[in-house]
């Protein structure tokens, strides 16, 4: 078994031996359901789609993903197992990738568990299942971006709380900069080119595009680039910390 998969396996089973995974899943599913049906006008819109469901995902991830990623490296550092891990014949990038895949896979499992909502909408009406599939893919990609950010924040500190707050803050800013209200507000003070750029780096805009069922290559590239960049930064931070 490759070292990456061995680490992924260990991390993933690690989620399930502690209550973390179960607490997370229950809250994720309850909140996804609650927000979709109550806050998201699921019924009143009179449309058979999962738009309100996917619209809620960025905000759910904002709170829940940092909780999944905060121990990722901070705990290894605090408990001393980092020394053990780095004395194994595993490169830093393999370790980062292994842990990332575990967290991403875990969110993937949570998304699969929301299938009853999809069944509900199919029972109630005749939705475009292609759009829904695209919505799931987009949501999962966005979760990947959040996790990559959380990975990087977790490498910076040995305190899980600090890692949580940093991750939530960075993700919040990246969601916020794409909101039309924010862009409108900044219109007078910030040059238009910068406004355009802000819209482009925002997680929100790209997530929104995919939630509408359009799998545009640019959005896919954006998410993959975000994931690669933050994971790359994590590798750099971990390597730098070996020299300090």
């Amino acid at each position, binding site marked *: *078994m*490759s*070292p990456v*998969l*061995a*680490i992924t*396996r*260990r991390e993933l*089973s*690690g989620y399930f*031996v*502690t209550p973390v995974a179960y607490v997370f899943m229950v809250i994720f599913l309850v909140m996804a359901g609650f927000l979709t049906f109550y806050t998201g006008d699921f019924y009143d819109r009179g449309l058979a789609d999962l738009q309100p469901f996917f619209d809620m995902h960025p905000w759910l991830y904002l709170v829940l993903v940092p909780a999944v990623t905060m121990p990722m490296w901070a705990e290894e550092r605090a*408990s*001393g*197992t*980092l*020394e*053990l891990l*780095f*004395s*194994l*014949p*595993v*490169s830093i990038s393999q370790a980062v990738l292994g842990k990332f895949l575990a967290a991403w896979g875990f969110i993937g499992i949570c998304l699969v568990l929301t299938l009853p909502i999809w069944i509900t909408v199919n029972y109630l009406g005749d939705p475009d299942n292609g759009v829904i599939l695209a919505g799931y893919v987009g949501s999962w990609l966005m979760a990947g971006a959040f996790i990559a950010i959380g990975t990087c924040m977790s490498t910076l500190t040995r305190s899980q709380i600090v890692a949580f707050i940093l991750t939530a803050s960075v993700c919040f800013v990246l969601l916020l900069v794409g909101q039309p209200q924010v862009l409108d507000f900044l219109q007078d003070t910030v040059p238009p080119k910068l406004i355009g750029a802000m819209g482009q780096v925002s997680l929100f805009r790209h997530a929104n595009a995919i939630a509408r069922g359009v799998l545009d290559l640019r959005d896919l590239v954006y998410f993959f680039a975000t994931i690669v960049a933050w994971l790359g930064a994590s590798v750099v931070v971990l*390597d730098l910390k*070996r*020299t*300090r």
Partner: protein
Amino acid sequence: MIETERLTRCYGPLTAVDSLTLRAEPGQVVGLLGPNGAGKSTAMRMIAGFLTPTSGTARVCGHDVRKEPLAAKRALGYLPEGAPSYGEMTVREFLDFMVRVRGLDSDVAYRRFDEVVMRLELEEVLEQTIGTLSKGLRRRVGLAQAILHDPPVLMLDEPTDGLDPNQKHSVRMLIDAMARERTILISTHLLEEVHALCNRVAIIANGKLLADATPAELEARSRYHGAVSFSAQGSGVSREMLARIPGVSMVEVDPLDGRVTVFPKPGQPILEDVQTLLRTQNLEISEIQLERGRLDEVFRQITTLPRGGHA
């Protein structure tokens, strides 16, 4: 084989390991001995690839830890200080993870797995969560992890720390049994361990290598080396006569228990002369001993020298 070449590590203004050049060959058990904070663990962390050296380098079986880190790590079994492990896993899961992450061939690996578990007497706790184990058991799990892949080089940071005397003994037996074809570097601040295990000692303090010798050579540096000590009734009488023996430099009497120690001039054997004298004096000797030298005294002498001084 482990070689370090002017291995140096600074933490800000503090030099934790200062130009350490060391060599350990197969078949040797080298003890890295030093007071707390001497730089033992930092040196080991650099050899293990956890810390990057500020300058200099180390090689494990010829693989440079900076240029070929993975090859170096493959050849190395390492027990970090305090034997960290994943507390939420069971012993079996943890060791299983170690086998997988090292990408070992499964058939051979699992035969080895059973062997290691048996050797470290971990059968009964295999299904127990590591976090619930005692300190001694956790250390044994750490040791198991370090020897699981049958590495040619073994590096153990305070392997017997926190173990009871029986466990210490069995860990020492294990190290001894593994020593024949392997290179073993252990760090310790226990002098008894040096006696029990090591065929070479490297003493470091303030990050500097101060002595690199066999335990016997170190003992020879002690002023007690070759000294004769005895307990006798009314031994106060013989003190001046003892001092008159050619080859004797000094006679000391312990004020508490009256034990007499006769120190030789360097390189002069005095045991026979002392024995002859005692016989002629008709003293009742309850016990007499030829001292090999005291490691603790040599250790203190070497490690408390002012900085820059060399023993």
